[in-house]
């Protein structure tokens, strides 16, 4: 049984944006959503980087009750706007709250009724990259360093930090009865969960899925990447994320989330749903080269071939790149895309240039950006890519390099520095992660 799958809802938490509409407006107005982050700035010389795309508690309509006995430990978060009942806030960390808020909003957009949500045929698959660090750090400090009794951590140390906390909280809030799981694949997590949801519906196991990724604000996560010296450094905030540019020197660690509503196409049509896009195909794989971190030209080419096998005649108008702004990642990605699609006839969009790298949320938030490109018939830019290198990239100097010997500057026409209005019928969205995991999805306008 191979069924077609529609996307009928989308919502998320986007830095500096109060709504999906504002998010789209800013993307296509070539704005950067990256700013100095007070929590990182306060660490002074302990960290290399201090900029981020982030959302404060206040901006998300939330507040926190901090523990009196465990410094820095949130006894509980509150929803100032009273969208989520207290009992569900008690079991949630920031990312889970964002997952719940996004899920409620995307269900509303989808038009699903209570009987459709509270169904065995409706499932949840929402993941995160990080591991509940902001809840666990003060808890572990209290227990291991200060010798306090375990009950000081309270009864919500586990549910607010467990791997699939985002899905678990959404499933409890919405009372869905279908599959209830999370996939983890580092920075491909958001797209992996959506791809998994697509397969659940395509293969007839579910009729509806809420799927996506969230990365709750966490200075611990930020510090982890800062320690690897992989974060952008030396630029003003809005210039920090600069995929494909000659002087790119690392990514901007950001936070946010998005959840999409997926539905079997015939059901969506039958109830007159607003179909945002249809999913043409999804493919994922692994590099298989034994390298935890380095991207693989061969792995990415195999990814494209897998997607092409599922989508005959694949001819995207836009490729939404992973485009992290790292020296190694961007060059290999550009060369693998051009190798598979040719050097003209499409544009490459790099939304991380505008809001940074949302880690486990990246694949979901960037698919929202892709859907907005379809809706608004506009390509979002590769911000800060005005200067492209005319020199060989490091990978082109490797002994076994089998790709193009053209420099990145030769691909100028693919990389718009500003938003471009044009007819867009099909978008391919790409995400990769540590461990050599690769994911690609193709979406099209309904009826195109």
């Amino acid at each position, binding site marked *: 049984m191979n069924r077609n799958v529609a996307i009928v809802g989308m919502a998320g938490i986007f830095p500096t944006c109060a709504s999906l509409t504002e998010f789209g407006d800013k993307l296509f107005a070539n704005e950067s959503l990256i700013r100095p982050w007070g929590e990182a700035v306060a660490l002074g010389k302990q960290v290399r980087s201090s900029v981020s795309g982030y959302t404060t508690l206040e901006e998300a309509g939330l507040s926190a009750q901090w523990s009196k006995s465990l410094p820095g430990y949130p006894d509980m978060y509150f929803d100032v706007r009273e969208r989520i009942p207290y*009992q569900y806030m008690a079991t949630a960390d920031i990312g889970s709250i964002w997952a719940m808020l996004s899920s409620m909003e995307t269900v509303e957009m989808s038009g699903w009724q209570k009987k459709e949500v509270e169904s065995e045929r409706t499932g949840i698959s929402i993941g995160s990259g990080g591991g509940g660090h902001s809840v666990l750090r003060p808890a572990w400090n209290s227990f291991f360093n200060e010798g306090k009794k375990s009950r000081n951590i*309270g009864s919500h140390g586990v549910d607010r930090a467990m791997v699939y906390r985002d899905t678990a909280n959404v499933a409890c809030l919405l009372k869905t009865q279908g599959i209830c799981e999370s996939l983890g694949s580092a920075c491909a997590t958001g797209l992996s969960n959506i791809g998994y949801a697509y397969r659940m519906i395509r293969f007839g196991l579910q009729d509806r899925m809420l799927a996506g990724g969230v990365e709750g604000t966490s200075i611990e996560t930020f510090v982890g990447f800062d320690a690897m010296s992989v974060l952008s450094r030396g630029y003003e905030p809005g210039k920090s994320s600069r995929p494909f540019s000659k002087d790119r020197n690392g990514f901007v660690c950001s936070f946010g989330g998005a959840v999409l509503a997926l539905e079997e196409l015939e059901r969506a049509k039958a109830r007159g749903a607003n179909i945002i896009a249809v999913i043409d195909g999804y493919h994922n794989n692994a590099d298989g080269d034994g390298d935890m971190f380095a991207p693989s030209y061969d792995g990415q080419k195999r990814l494209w071939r897998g997607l092409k096998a599922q989508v005959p005649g694949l001819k995207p108008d836009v490729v939404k790149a992973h485009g992290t702004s790292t020296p190694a990642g961007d060059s290999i990605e550009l060369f693998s895309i051009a190798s598979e699609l040719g050097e003209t006839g499409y544009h490459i969009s790099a939304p991380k240039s505008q809001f940074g790298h949302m880690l486990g949320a990246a694949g979901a938030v960037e698919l929202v950006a892709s859907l907005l490109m379809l809706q608004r018939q506009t390509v979002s830019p590769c911000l800060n890519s005005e200067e492209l290198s005319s020199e060989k990239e490091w990978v082109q100097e490797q002994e076994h390099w089998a790709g193009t010997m053209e420099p990145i500057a030769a691909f100028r026409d693919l990389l718009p520095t500003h938003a471009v209005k044009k007819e867009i019928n099909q978008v391919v969205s790409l995400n990769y992660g540590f461990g050599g995991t690769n994911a690609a999805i193709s979406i099209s306008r309904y009826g195109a």
Partner: protein
Amino acid sequence: MTRQDVLDGIVRILKEVKTVDQEALKNISEDSDFIADLGLPSTEMINIIAKAEDEFQLEFDDDDVDALDSKVSETIDLVMRTQQKK
């Protein structure tokens, strides 16, 4: 410290616990039940006990905590008993 002092301290704790029925809290007495009368989820009981240790600057024995039920009077008993042991 009297039993009323302890009850007042418990009210101070519960006023900050949003899962507690704040209307029902106005009528709390020693005979109240945290779960049945005040709407406290059972998973929150241990949080109230930990906060009580902090509020009254005491450390309860684990056996005593394990033996507690959800009656307010039992928590007051525990506080008074532990206070006397100090």
